[in-house]
């Protein structure tokens, strides 16, 4: 089995503020494009990261100042291509069993973020860090969603 981790990963540390979401989407989009992920799926990945970051701003920090860290690793092994994205905050630890999608049959404003994250990502896991804060790890398989030309060049 061969595995290749791309050299140019994604690493961001930003204020946990709504105005930063625009920058997060821009950076994630650029990184996905460099990794050869096709546009439609890049858009979905940006949406999932936006929703995850917005949840941190609203629930972990409740609008108070704070920071969030986003890292992304591209892993290629045996013709599979996965993106592993990790989002960390130092805010309030929300009980993990309360982080779940709501019933979509109930039409009301809000509560869609977790549903959207789970729809886009193949694996999603929230954990509390002993020192405080929360880590969200997301894995998405983009094997069939990577354009052939870029896939070749990133393997080189």
């Amino acid at each position, binding site marked *: 089995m061969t595995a290749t981790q791309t050299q140019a990963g994604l690493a961001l540390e930003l204020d946990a503020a709504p105005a930063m979401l625009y920058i997060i989407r821009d950076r994630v989009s650029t990184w996905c494009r460099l990794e050869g992920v096709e546009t439609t799926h890049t858009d979905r990945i940006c949406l999932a990261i936006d929703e995850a970051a917005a949840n941190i701003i609203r629930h972990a920090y409740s609008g108070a100042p704070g920071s969030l860290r986003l890292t992304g690793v591209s892993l290629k092994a045996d013709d599979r291509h996965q993106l592993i994205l990790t989002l960390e905050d130092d805010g309030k630890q929300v009980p993990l069993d309360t982080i779940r999608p709501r019933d*979509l049959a109930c039409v009301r404003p809000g509560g869609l973020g977790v549903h959207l994250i789970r729809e886009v990502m193949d694996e999603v896991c929230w954990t509390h860090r002993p020192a405080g804060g929360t880590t969200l790890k997301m894995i998405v398989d983009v094997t069939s969603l990577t354009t052939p030309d870029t896939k070749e060049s990133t393997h080189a």
Partner: protein
Amino acid sequence: MREGHPNTLEVHVDATDDRLVIRPVGEIDLSTSPSLRASLQTALAGGTCPVFINLAAVPYMDSSGVATLVEALQICRRAKRDLSLVQLTDRVLSIFTISKLDTVFTICDDMNC
């Protein structure tokens, strides 16, 4: 680089006797949805004519934007007023599809729906 160019949203409102057209311009996320919400609440106060929210100039929307539009839909339903979303980009339409709200809203290609 986008730093130094904050995400901004403009909301244009065109009211005639027979319809109200609301046209946001810009990306709708947690930073701009409060502005859209305020504009919608003002525009939807009173009146009974059909409402069209034209999303042609909205390249991106997250769940805070969807929540704002659900609120607008609820306001219109209470006032027995039709509300339609028109000219959605594929990217924006996809969030309504993923969240299964594409069957809750009236979504049209143009304002003749």
